[in-house]
């Protein structure tokens, strides 16, 4: 018989209570995975979206709370293209619109934009000068809306024809509808405006040169902010706020899990006062008895976190497939993230056992043995 077997038997003595406690921990862990995973999925989708388009720097209106709320005069694009070190510039109008019951991302690109070349056309073609009311759909979006090349989409009293379906590495891009810039400007009543300015640099890997260009751009255009793509996600206030909210809810869920363990172990210790007295009488040191109680808590946390990881992964995939969120979350998990969750659950188990274990250490064998 192993030491751990004794802890396991003690938990199994009250299977319903132990299972419910483990379930409580599982829900806490699942909440952590689902919420933090969602935040990270959004970050990842944003990051992949920009890297998939070969963008090195992004410009948007200074002090915008959220990038989509940025509005820039389109004429700035030409001025930026003349700055030394800038290889190519593209003003992009972007927004979220509802089509049917779902929310989709829309982007407007000028006809001469380098961004068109980043699309891998699976069906149909790129828009030409004779396609003023045309659109390209990402493959995921086309599947979600069940649209094919040649179909039309009614949008703000204009019928837009789907002329192509494209693929891209980023889930966010694949869930986007791309229209010619003038059409989207007209549809959104934002003539002459763009949301962001996408820049390609001649030497993107030269950190010093990139920083110098960024500094120069910030000087020349004081109303705009220029960030390298890796900084954009961190600068997005909406994502930051979303992350903070998710972390707060996760911490509350974890605390609830901690109290589940604490409560269960306290009850277990109170029920087994005499048995603890027997162990002490038989020569068990208090540290060993405390370890027994702590192992019980850690077993609960381990069982709960194993179930929680499964529930969380399934839950997050389900969340990512929801109509309103499709494409905005890329539910991919890193080993590091899962390790973080396991570590958090282990800490939960240890913290939840400290007080019951301390209570155990305070018991006097002679008093404990008198208990019935």
């Amino acid at each position: 018989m192993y030491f751990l077997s004794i802890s396991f038997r003690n938990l199994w003595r009250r299977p319903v209570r132990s299972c419910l406690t483990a379930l409580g921990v599982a829900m806490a862990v699942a909440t952590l995975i689902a919420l933090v995973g969602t935040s990270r999925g959004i970050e990842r989708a944003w990051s992949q979206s920009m890297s998939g388009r070969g963008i090195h720097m992004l410009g948007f209106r200074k002090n915008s709370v959220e990038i989509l709320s940025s509005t820039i005069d389109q004429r700035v694009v030409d001025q930026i293209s003349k700055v030394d070190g800038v290889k190519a510039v593209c003003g992009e109008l972007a927004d979220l619109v509802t089509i049917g019951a779902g929310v989709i991302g829309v982007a407007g690109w000028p006809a001469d934009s380098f961004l068109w070349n980043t699309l891998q056309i699976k069906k149909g073609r790129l828009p030409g000068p004779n396609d003023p009311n045309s659109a390209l759909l990402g493959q995921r979006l086309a599947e979600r809306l069940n649209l094919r090349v040649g179909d039309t989409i009614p949008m703000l009293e204009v019928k837009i024809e789907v002329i192509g379906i494209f693929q891209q590495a980023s889930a966010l891009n694949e869930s986007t509808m791309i229209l010619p810039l003038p059409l989207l400007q007209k549809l959104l009543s934002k003539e002459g405006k763009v949301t962001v300015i996408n820049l390609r640099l001649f030497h993107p890997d030269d950190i010093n040169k990139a920083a110098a260009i960024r500094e120069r751009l910030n000087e020349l255009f004081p109303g705009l902010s220029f960030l390298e793509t890796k900084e954009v996600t961190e600068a997005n206030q909406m994502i930051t706020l979303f992350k903070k909210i998710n972390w707060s809810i996760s911490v509350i869920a974890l605390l609830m899990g901690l109290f589940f363990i604490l409560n269960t172990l306290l009850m277990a210790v109170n029920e087994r006062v005499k048995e603890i007295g027997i162990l002490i009488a038989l020569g068990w040191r208090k540290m060993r008895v405390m370890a027994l109680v702590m192992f019980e808590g850690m077993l609960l946390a381990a069982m709960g976190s194993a179930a929680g990881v499964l529930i969380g992964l399934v839950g997050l995939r389900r969340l990512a497939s929801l109509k309103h969120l499709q494409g905005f979350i890329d539910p991919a998990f890193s080993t590091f993230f899962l390790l973080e969750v396991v570590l958090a659950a282990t800490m939960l188990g240890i913290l939840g056992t400290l007080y019951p274990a301390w209570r155990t250490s305070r018991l006097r064998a002679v008093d404990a043995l008198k208990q019935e």
Partner: protein
Amino acid sequence: MGSSLLRLQHVSRNYDQGNIVALKDITLEVRRGEWLTIIGPSGSGKTTLLNLMCGLDLPDQGQVFFQDHQPRSTAEWAGLRAHNVGFVFQAFNLLPTLTALENVQIPMFGICRSAAGRRQRALELLQQVDLVQRAHHLPNNLSGGERQRVAIARSLANSPPLIMADEPTGNLDSQSAEQIMALLNRIHTQDRTTIVMVTHNPLVARMGDRRVNLVDGRIAIYPELGAADPCIS
């Protein structure tokens, strides 16, 4: 008789801030290899004395020496008990979630590090008390006599020089009580294991080399074996 195994010098124990005197100025020696029987009526302080003798409780006054060493803390006593003292309780005190085999292994944790070693030793001990066939039964599925035999096997787990038995036949029928006393006697005579037994049963009290009669927390009679004992007669 052998050298001193356990020695109490002017030991007193009070409860309720001194209002209740459980033991008063007890001086007593247990010699290696002897069987000491502590008798006395209910409430006379027998169990308190037993608890003080093995450090489950600490005296308010006086000293307790184990092998001429005076343990100072409960932690020191715990280590000492693990290696040197086996317990047999009136209520058996087996852990209900563990089988007979597992209960016998409990005192071995921290002493015998290998799980296989613990299991082997526990099987040998159950063999000694003739309970191998019940090794995988939970205490609830054993009779009172069988439970006490498991408890005796458990008390022998670390081959202690001393066994403390607190009313070992108190919860048993006469036939089972006889078997338990025969078993304790065998352990005492075969291995020269020192036994300190508390009882208020006059028949059981006949066992042993010496008797201590405790009345109102004091040693009333301290007869050698065979001396007239009004309590027993």
